[in-house]
């Protein structure tokens, strides 16, 4: 069960239209290492997670990632709304707006559509948490890559916030891996033993 909150996790101010930036933000939202992939990966991993504390980490970070999807969606909308036809064409975003107007749509900066194949759920507890640590670092690198091309302070601030959250999540998943190893040792959980 989820409850919606009519607010953003981080405030977004007045953003100037910038279709080129929207194209890069698309990667952070709907790319292979984007927020949508992260959220669904963590939430799906919960069902084979034997350790309750780590299931909590997956639930809570997976939920926070959903709020990141929303935050990036709002930034995306503001970058595309009121953009001139010319600037949209120049940025290669005319097709996007023709198809989706200024709504977000999960695809990356090259136009590759988001695919469920991005979801990194093996159902193996150790493999999954280790995957998540790498996923957080790849997402962090993605934010830094996009920030390099960003000159609007109203966009930089939320992107820096989101970059920082990747670092915190990496830290928590690292701790979760230790908690999980201890748990599996104590309760003799062997995920490969199935009858």
């Amino acid at each position, binding site marked *: 069960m989820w409850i919606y909150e*009519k*607010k953003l996790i981080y*405030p977004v101010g007045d953003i100037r239209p910038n279709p080129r930036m929207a194209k890069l933000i698309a990667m952070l939202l709907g790319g292979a290492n984007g927020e949508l992939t992260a959220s669904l990966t963590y939430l799906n991993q919960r069902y084979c997670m034997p350790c309750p504390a780590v299931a909590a980490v997956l639930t809570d970070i997976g939920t926070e990632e959903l709020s990141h999807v929303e935050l990036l*969606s709002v930034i995306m909308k503001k970058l595309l709304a009121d953009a001139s036809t010319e600037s949209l064409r120049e940025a290669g975003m005319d097709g996007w707006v023709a198809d989706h107007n200024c709504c977000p749509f999960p695809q990356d900066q090259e136009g590759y559509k988001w695919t469920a194949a991005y979801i990194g759920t093996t159902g193996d507890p150790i493999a999954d948490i280790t995957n998540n640590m790498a996923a957080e670092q790849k997402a962090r690198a993605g934010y830094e890559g996009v920030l390099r091309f960003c000159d609007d302070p109203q966009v930089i601030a939320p992107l820096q916030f989101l970059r920082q959250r990747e670092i*915190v999540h990496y830290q*928590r998943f690292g*701790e*979760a891996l230790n908690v999980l190893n201890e748990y599996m040792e104590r309760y003799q959980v062997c995920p490969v033993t199935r009858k």
Partner: protein
Amino acid sequence: MTKQVHDHCTCSETITVGKKQHLMQQIAECEFMLIDINLFLDTHPDDTRALDDYNCYAEQLAALKDLYVKNYGPIHNFGNSVSKGSWRWVKADWPWHNDHMSEPMSKEDTHHVDL
């Protein structure tokens, strides 16, 4: 008007009755603290100082949200915010609207409640 919410823990925050945008800012800050402490507690469940902070901020968040909801309309759906007078969920602006948090609701939609 300012009200001291807690005097027994590291959280020395106060609630300041201000404009809609200011109140939402306070909610966002308080809730962010709770998200971060929540994640920390997931992997450090025996940290009593973090737990105390969590409980303090949780009480503070509830008070802030209550104040906001009574003055400006619901933040949550599905029964987690009351909607006095009319169904206000459909009235208040959504986070992706340009005027989000910039204008208070019309007078008839707003009945101010003091702490």
